[in-house]
């Protein structure tokens, strides 16, 4: 027994360095990221969602911080919260400032619920409350029928006539705040004919759209009583607006003649769901208490997002609302919100983005999901 004990002691002594390393390893276990000690909130307008900022020591607003209804914002710090000039909580918003010495362990934030599908959100934004119109996909061919109308003394009826059709576009729609050069618009073929040649007095025509998302019209005139306009839009249905939130900080509005942040943050629900997932994982793992800067996604109904104001690419992959640019360098994005290029790209891949179309573009990661 004595021999066994002494041999065990000798063996344990011999492996003591290894045991020490094991102890060190087990004491350095980590999971999600650590809570920031001091949190400096960047200028921001918080106008939706439940948003919580946590820091183990202090939270300060470095510039304008606006809390508006219906947002609920909570600041929780271990020692102090300093609200500098520029902080405003507008009546109707809910704002809490909590001192909690036990705020030492970062609580991972949950992945936000996927955005609610909304077929016509982008179109409604484009029309500004006006009557809904048909919408055709960019670069598509669509069969339509042209009629002539006349008053027969009692009611308006369809009549045979020689008809002429002239498409055109409306300037400054879908957040394209530029018109030099003027926007291309859809073509129609044939653009004239006699409707009496068709059994139901409806002349079939093909509307071929361009890659530009915008509001357009066809002016229909003929030798019958009534000339009229047919209004429609070119773009994609189903894009939803991605706001500032627990995980996102919008950037890039007002930089390319395409409106403000309300114009360049539209996505498909599928892409938004993946992006939220990747962003939440990244924040929880590497940047707790902070956010992810999201720049260009798509315009409200998509189509060509021509950052050079020439109705053409680059930026082709932002046409359909399947991609987002995430800042990896400071500039428009607060420095402590930037991401590591490779790691955020990998997070996007885990969250279902397309491996070959999720790339780095200089100062940002471009994550793209299947349409």
């Amino acid at each position, binding site marked *: 027994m004595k*021999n*066994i004990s002494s*041999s065990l002691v000798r063996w344990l002594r011999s492996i003591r360095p290894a045991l020490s390393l094991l102890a060190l*390893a*087990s004491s*350095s*276990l*980590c*999971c*999600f*990221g650590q809570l920031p000690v001091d949190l400096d909130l960047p200028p921001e307008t918080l106008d939706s969602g439940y948003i919580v900022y946590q820091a183990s020591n202090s939270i300060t607003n470095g510039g304008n911080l606006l809390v508006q209804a219906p947002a609920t914002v909570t600041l929780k710090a271990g020692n102090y919260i300093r609200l500098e000039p520029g902080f405003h909580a507008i009546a109707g918003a809910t704002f809490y400032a909590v001192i909690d010495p036990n705020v030492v362990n970062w609580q*991972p934030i*949950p*992945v936000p619920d996927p955005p609610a599908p909304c077929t016509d959100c982008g179109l409604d934004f484009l029309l500004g409350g006006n009557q809904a119109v048909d919408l055709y996909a960019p670069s598509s061919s669509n069969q339509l029928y042209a009629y002539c109308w006349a008053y027969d003394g009692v009611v308006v009826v369809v009549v045979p006539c020689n008809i002429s059709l002239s498409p055109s576009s409306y300037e400054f729609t879908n957040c394209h705040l530029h018109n030099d050069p003027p926007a291309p618009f859809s073509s129609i073929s044939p653009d004239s004919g006699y409707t009496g040649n068709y059994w139901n007095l409806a002349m079939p025509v093909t509307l071929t759209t361009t890659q530009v998302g915008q509001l357009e019209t066809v002016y229909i005139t003929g030798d019958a009583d009534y000339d009229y306009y047919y209004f429609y839009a070119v773009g994609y249905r189903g894009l939803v607006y991605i706001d500032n939130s627990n995980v996102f900080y919008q950037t890039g509005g007002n930089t390319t003649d395409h409106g403000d942040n309300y114009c360049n943050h539209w996505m498909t629900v599928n892409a938004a769901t993946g992006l939220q*997932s990747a962003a939440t*994982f990244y924040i*929880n*793992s*590497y940047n707790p208490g902070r956010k992810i800067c999201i720049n260009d996604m798509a315009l409200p109904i998509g189509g060509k997002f021509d950052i050079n104001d020439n109705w053409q690419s*680059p930026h*082709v992959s932002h046409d359909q609302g399947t991609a987002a640019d995430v800042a990896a360098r400071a500039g428009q994005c607060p420095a402590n919100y930037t991401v*590591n290029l*490779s*790691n955020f*790209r*990998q*997070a996007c*891949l*885990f*969250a279902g983005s*397309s*491996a*070959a*179309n*999720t*790339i*780095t*573009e*200089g100062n940002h990661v*471009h994550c793209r999901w299947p349409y």
Partner: protein
Amino acid sequence: MQGFLINRRIQLCVAAILLSVPAADFAQNMPAPPIPTWSGLGGIPKGNENRKVFLSPDEHSVIILWPNPDGTETRRRFDLHNTIFPDLRVHMEGSSGSFRYRYDLKNGKESKDSLKDFLIVVYQDPQMQTSSALWKGGLWPPLLKERVGIPGAPPGWIATWMCCVEEQPLMPGASTNFTLITEARPGFTSASTEYFPHLDLTDEWPEDILDQLGPVLDLKWIAYHFITLGPRYGPDHPEVRIAADYLVGIQELIRIHRLESDSLFVKEAIAHLDAVSAGSSARFVITQKPRSELEAEIQSALQLSLHFIYKQPQ
């Protein structure tokens, strides 16, 4: 005499480790190349004249016909950083309805590339605790992922960890570990590891080349996948179905030659699992000694999931 026994036991353990192979991995049975292969020498393989991207015969690089401004093409080779030989072992313990899983991930000495992430598909337990000795990450609900390589297995949440914002990658020859604590009982699941990024894709890459790279960069192909044991069944999952799932997993491991069908341990386990899946509620005793680390892991999992008892013959 006791001292001799202790030493003898240590020797046996060492021998077992030396004899063992990374039994749970099946990446050696990788699926067919997702795109045509070509060495980059000589002419382009027939029928692929319009293709711009090829996989090298060793599947560790891609050969790309890169367009030049003058309309010509240059053959360029890009390393995929997938020359890795990882090993994964799992140690499972259970007490009071809680199960602890520790995964030891080793990057083989013969690897050329480091490992930068680890992912395992797990049961959807929001209370699961996760930790890592080296990297950051953890449970990632509600993202669902397929259990790769296990026929009929449902998708699960993932726990994943990554280097290298401030952390070090796992260099060839190095090891690390990850721990899960959960109420979920063990079953067959899948895990994966890889180097990333496999290629430094930027907006300078032509769109058609990026599109053709898609199948190669798909994580299901390019990541190194393991079949392993991990949290799969909630506390109320019926034993009949658990046993049926184990049978599917064991048959698949036999099919890909990670288990031997003539192993006495495997034969005994299959017989007992057949009985449980047919509705028997008897408590089964495994008497055959596991011959490999994978068999030992399965034995441990069966003890925890189905209360099998291990009793070595006298």
